[in-house]
Every structure is written in C-alpha cells, then in structure tokens.
C-alpha cells in the first residue's frame, strides 16, 4: 500500500487549524470582532463588552449540560422550561422568605433542576422513550406547569435583595461575576470530561454505543447522569436568570433551548455524538452572540438576523458533513487494494 505523501507544510498547518475546532472558532471570532470594530469603533467599548458577556453567559452555561448530553447522541430540549420554572421559583423564595441567603436559593434552584432532569432520565433510561421525544414532551409539560403555577404573576427586581442581583450586575477584574461563575464551571467540566474515566465514558457512548457496552460501561447510568447534570445546570441557570434580569414571569427562558443547541453544534459538538468539548460549545455560544451583535451594529434589519443565525448553523453542519464525507471517500479509495 502506498504511504500518503506529506503535503507541503502550508496545507498541513491549515489542516491542523481546521481540525482544532476551538482554534478555528477563535479565528472566526477575531475576524468578526475586527470587522465590526473597523466599521463601528463603539463595538469594543467596555460597556458593550460587558453587555456581550452578560448576554452570552447563561447560554454558555447551558451549553455545558447540552454538550454532555449531545456527546452521548442524546438531546435535551427541556432546559428552557427548567430555566423558566427555577427562575420563578427562586424569585418566589425571596418574596415569601425575605432574607434567605443567596447560596440557599441557588442550591434549591439547582436541586429543583436536578429533580426535573431526573424525570427526563427516568423516562429515557427506564421508559426507553427517545430523548428527542421525552424532552420535547417535558419542554411543554414543564412550561405548562409553570404557566399554571405562575398564573399571570410576576417577580420584580424590587422583591429581590441587591446582593443577589449584584451577581448579574457587578464586575470583578472587568468581567461580570456571572461570567466568572460560568468560566469556573467550564474549567471544572473541561477537566472532568478530559481527565477522568467517567468523563471519557460520555465520549465512548456517543462514539459507539455497542463498543461501550462491550467495554463494560454502564451506559444507562451514564445517560441518566448526563440528564441529571443537564437539569441541575439548567436549575443554576434559572437562579442566575433571576439575578441577571430581576423581572421574571412565566415566559422566562422561552425558546433558548434552540439557541443553546445551535451554539453547542456550531461549537463543534457533533450531533451524532462522540466529538466536541465544552470549551468549544461555549466558544460557539460566544460566536453566535458576537455574530448577532455584529448584525445589529451593521444595521441588518432585525427580521434578517434570525435567518443569518440559521445560515451560520447550516454552514457549520454542512462543513462538518463535507469533511467527514471526504475523509470517508478518501479512506475507501485508499483501501481499494482488492
């Protein structure tokens, strides 16, 4: 068999870059920022950077849970409804029990998210209902229950202690506290997924479920853990949503599940599982957010902005599919020794 001839160094360098999703995302991000700043210098002002980071933080947080789930070839559509319920619940605690410590509220919110994620996990693992259907169902069930419970009420910033609200407003070393929390979790989950046996199992399951069983991995337990984590992270996102916006009604978070999935996939987590990192997914969220700011700064009519975001997703997926197809074809021809 013939050895593949080494390409000239330039092409190889390019391939290494393209193969590292994080690096190509960063390059794209830099290009976007440069172009937009050139056209409108206000884009890089301290205030607009802060706004950008605040906008992206909660989405980026949710991409962590979503990445873990998608890595296993599953999906969690219900997160936006979990965010909605837990955001209103956190506010209700402050209304009914003024003076509850911030940590307790966040803890309760995460616990509630964990329970809702547990319902997803039970239906998927024991009920053997595909995740797409299960979480589509619970997306509506959780939201519907939320409407019934909220019953037209609203939480106002005036009901929330300022220490809690400061999570969403104050800045440490130029970066919002909210963003620091997300960065911390990103580091934690990056290390867990890369450096620990349990983390590698998520990749193994998504890469080849049969091989995972043969390797003695408890696939059911791992899948359940993924949905529990996704629920818990959505619970945390709910509490942070309250801190960020102060005002919460029954519609909080509606529709963000699709933004999260888009960001995750653009960030290089393959929808077919087994490939991607939480850092990439978070960069995907940042890229999508910068992209939409760019569209605003460039005065693209608002009804076109969504179309551009959708196009971005399709370009990312099409590029992945193209690369995978080319790779497969090359291998098939390379092996044609018969």
């Amino acid at each position, binding site marked *: 068999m013939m050895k593949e001839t080494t390409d000239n160094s330039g092409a190889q360098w390019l391939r290494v870059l393209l193969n590292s999703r994080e690096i190509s995302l960063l390059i794209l991000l830099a290009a976007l920022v440069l172009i937009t700043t050139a056209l409108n210098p206000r884009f890089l002002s301290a205030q607009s950077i802060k706004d950008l980071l605040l906008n992206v933080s909660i989405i980026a947080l949710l991409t962590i849970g979503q990445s873990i789930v998608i890595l296993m070839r599953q999906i969690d559509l219900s997160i936006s409804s979990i965010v909605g319920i837990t955001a209103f619940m956190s506010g209700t605690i402050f209304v009914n029990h003024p003076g509850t410590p911030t940590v307790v509220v966040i803890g309760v919110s995460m616990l509630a998210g964990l329970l809702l994620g547990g319902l997803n996990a039970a239906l998927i693992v024991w009920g053997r209902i595909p995740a797409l259907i299960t979480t589509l169902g619970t997306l509506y069930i959780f939201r519907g229950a939320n409407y019934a419970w909220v019953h037209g009420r609203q939480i106002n910033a005036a009901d929330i202690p300022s220490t809690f609200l400061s999570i969403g407003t104050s800045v440490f070393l130029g970066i919002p506290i909210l963003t620091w929390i997300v960065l911390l979790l990103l580091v934690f989950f990056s290390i867990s997924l890369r450096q620990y046996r349990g983390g590698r199992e998520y990749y193994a399951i998504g890469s080849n479920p049969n*091989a995972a069983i043969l390797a003695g991995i408890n696939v059911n337990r791992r899948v359940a853990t993924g949905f529990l984590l996704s629920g818990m992270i959505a619970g945390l996102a709910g509490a942070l949503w309250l801190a960020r916006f102060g005002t919460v009604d029954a519609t909080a978070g509606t529709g963000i599940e699709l933004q999260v999935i888009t960001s995750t996939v653009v960030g290089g987590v393959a929808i077919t599982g087994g490939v991607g990192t939480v850092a990439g997914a978070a960069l995907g969220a940042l890229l999508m957010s910068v992209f939409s700011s760019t569209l605003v700064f460039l005065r693209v009519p608002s009804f076109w902005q969504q179309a551009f975001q959708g196009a971005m997703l399709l370009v990312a997926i099409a590029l992945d599919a193209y690369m995978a197809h080319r790779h497969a074809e090359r291998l098939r021809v390379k092996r044609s020794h018969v």
Partner: protein
Amino acid sequence: MNTPTIELLDIHKSFGATPVLEGVSLQLFPGEVHSLMGENGAGKSTLVKIMAGLHQPDKGVLRIEGREAAFHSTAQAQHAGVAVIYQEPTLFPDLSIAENIFMGRQPTLRWRRIDYAAMNRAVSQQLSQLGVSLRPEDPVLGLSIADQQIVEIIKALTFDARVLIMDEPTAALSAEEVRRLFQVVARLRSKGVALMFVSHRLEEVFEISQRITVMRDGRVVSSAPAVEFTPDDVVRKMVGRSLDALYPKEDVEPGEVVLSVRNLRRAGVFKDISFDVRRGEIVGLAGLVGAGRSEVARAIFGIDRLDGGEVSIGGRSLSRHNPDAAMEAGIGFVPEDRQQQGLVMELSVLRNATLTVLGRLKRFGLVSQAQEKSVAAEWTSRMRLKGHIEEPVNILSGGNQQKVVLAKWLATQPKFLIVDEPTRGIDVGAKSEVHRTLSQLAKAGMGILMISSDMPEVIGMADRVLVMHEGKLTAELSRSEATEEAIMFAAAGQTASKS
C-alpha cells in the same frame, strides 16, 4: 497431555425452535492455534459468542484451565482471560488508539486523573513490540480493518488474555496485512496464549494451525491435529451431506441475453465483474459472506455508486445508475434483509405488494383502489400466500413475508430479477414454494440472479453458478460442474483441484 486453557463440553444452543449447536465439544491448548472451519451457518459464530460471554449455552460445560466457569457477560469472559476479535472490530472511532485500548481502566495519577502519558507509552511499547507503525494518539477513525484488529489484539494483551479467539480476522485483509497478523500470532503462541482461528481460507488455516476442527450443521464432524488433514478432506467434511431433490428447477432452453454487466468496479469492494444472464436462466452467485455478492447486486440495481463499468438490460445500456432507472429498465431486486429493506412492516399485504407499481396504477394522479386490489390479489394468489391481504405484514411468518416481497417485485413484471438469500430463515415448506415460484418465473422468460449461501439451493436451482472471492469472480461453473466441493474451493480462493 496438559490441561486445556479453555474447554467446551457438550454445548447445546437453540434460537427459538432452531437448534444451532447440538453437543459441541472443543479444547484449546496453550501455545496452540486451533482452527475452526465450517460453512456459513454451521454454528461457528454462535460457538465463538458463547466463549465471549455474549450468548449463554442452553446446556453444556465450559472450563477455564480445568475449572468450571459460566460467563453471563462479556466482562466476565474478559476477566477470565478470554478475548475475542471479531471480523469487524467494535471500537470507538472518535477516540484515540490508546483510549480505545484502555477505556474504563486508564492508568491514573493523583486525584485519579487519567495519566495519558503512561497510557500512550504502554500502547507505544506494545505497538513497537508487534512491529506496527501506528501512533497511540491517533484516532481510530480511518484505520484499516487490519490496524483496527491490531488495536483489538493489543487490548487483549493488556488484559493478559490467555485465550484469543479470532473470528475470520483475515477476511478483509490484504496479503501483506495477513502476513503481519500471522507474525503477531506466532509471537502470542510463543507466550503460551491459546488461540482459536475461525476462517474460510484453507491455505491460511494450514499455514498457521496445529489443530483443526470441522463443524457442520451445529456438530463437530472432525477434530484432529492439522497434519492429519489435507485441504480436500476439510472441504469434503465441511459440505459432506446428501443433496435432497427438493429443488424443482425445470430445464429451460436459455433465450437471448437479458442482463449483461461489464467490468463493474467499486473501489475497495469489488472489481472486474463481467457476466451475462439469459432469459429463462437462473444464475447462482455463490461465495462467502463478505465476498461482495450483495454489493454487486446493490450496484446493479443502482443503490450503491459504481466507480466504473456498464450494466445493460436487453442490449440497452443503463445511462443513469439509480433504483428508479433500474426498475424502469425492468430490473427487480429482492433484498437480503426483508424487514429492513423489503417491507413496510406496519402496512397491509395489499399496500406492500403494490408499493412498487403505484405509478402504473395511478389515474388522474390518484391510485385506483380497485386496481390496486386486483394486482395484489393476482400476485399473492400466484404465490399461494396464506392470510388476508388487508392484514399488516408484521404478523406473517418469515416465509409468507418473503412471498409478499416477491409479489411486490413480480407486480413490476421485471425482465430480470435479483434475489438475495431468498430463503434465509424461512421454513422448509415456504422454501420450496419460493423455489417453485422462481422456477416458474424463469420458465416464463425472466432472467434471475440468485445470491445464496445455501449450497444445496445453489446447486439445485442454478443453471449456472458464478463464484466470488474477495470482490472478484473466481469461477463460472455449469450445472454439471457445480459440485459443493468445486464451489467451496473457488469461494475460498483456491484453484480447484477437481477430484
């Protein structure tokens, strides 16, 4: 004699009502390569899966180094030191070679962090010991089957496997890769590993085995040191059964050429495929699983892309290669896997039978119910299909399902029909109905290409037998030349030494 590393005693196994293993006993000794041979369906794979812990025997004893053992999972088998390498390795394509080998038991550092450096080093060492130039950090995606097997072998070695079973490991390998695999096998032998080698390739079996066991129809027919066999013995023992006269192929004078294929080629799958099928003729396409028979059929019907070659029907070359064009030209295709490729299980017999001809039944853009019914009724009654045509097909038996698939294609009135394993998994009664129908169709002037792994079926039904081996046609045998021995030799890639 020393104790066998693994010993099977009187193993029985049935799937449903079908017995697959009927009292099989087998012993593997340390430092010995034991080859297991038999036709497709002799029960080899089931035996392997029992040793791997994937299936549990209904009856019988399994001993590891003299101690009785029972495997309820693959993990237990692995723990007992039994490693199995399948023809198509099951690996994680997106993960690195080293991770594939150490999944679930990675070496760790402080705080139980994975020690990637140690892991890569260990794999690197094994790779160089086996003389393989792969890098432990590279992803498995893109490795050849041969290299994937090396990954599996290293996995087995790091488990300290005492028994290594290889299920047709060479089926997808080039000569060079086989040579490398055998070097690895020799090294394992010298370490005292007991090896089992399941293969159809006689030459290789005689090259590396110390002991040979031949299975047929779920039983061991012969087991002895390799030196006591000749290749001819083995083949005779593999096939050795009488041909029953169940096959009602009527003699038909073949007419003009209906299908002609020239130099079909699909890179990595098959090449240089040229043959003709005449009107009234049933041409058998024999070969081992993986020889590329179904792939050729799929390419003729336009499902898989061709890299070169020409398909013509009735002298006219097909310009487009897709199932639509093939059907239009008069090709019918009954695929191997009825449930997945041939039938819509939830729909009624009627709907399934007319699925292929809806275009013809259309009037003013709508399907005429009455006409749909009459077409379905005609073909299902000609097939002697039991049951009502409004019933969903998933409640029918395998044999009746196959008849529905046939009816569906016959309704298109093809000039040429491809049937892939037409009687696999159906009972004897339905089998002879299918055979009778095929025979009638040929008599009525259809050309038929029949892919089959069922030797008596091929010999009984086919006017002419083509044999494939590793993507190439290796023999064309007339009805009188087509003996089981001759077909097996050609299928195993040997030049026939006719007796």
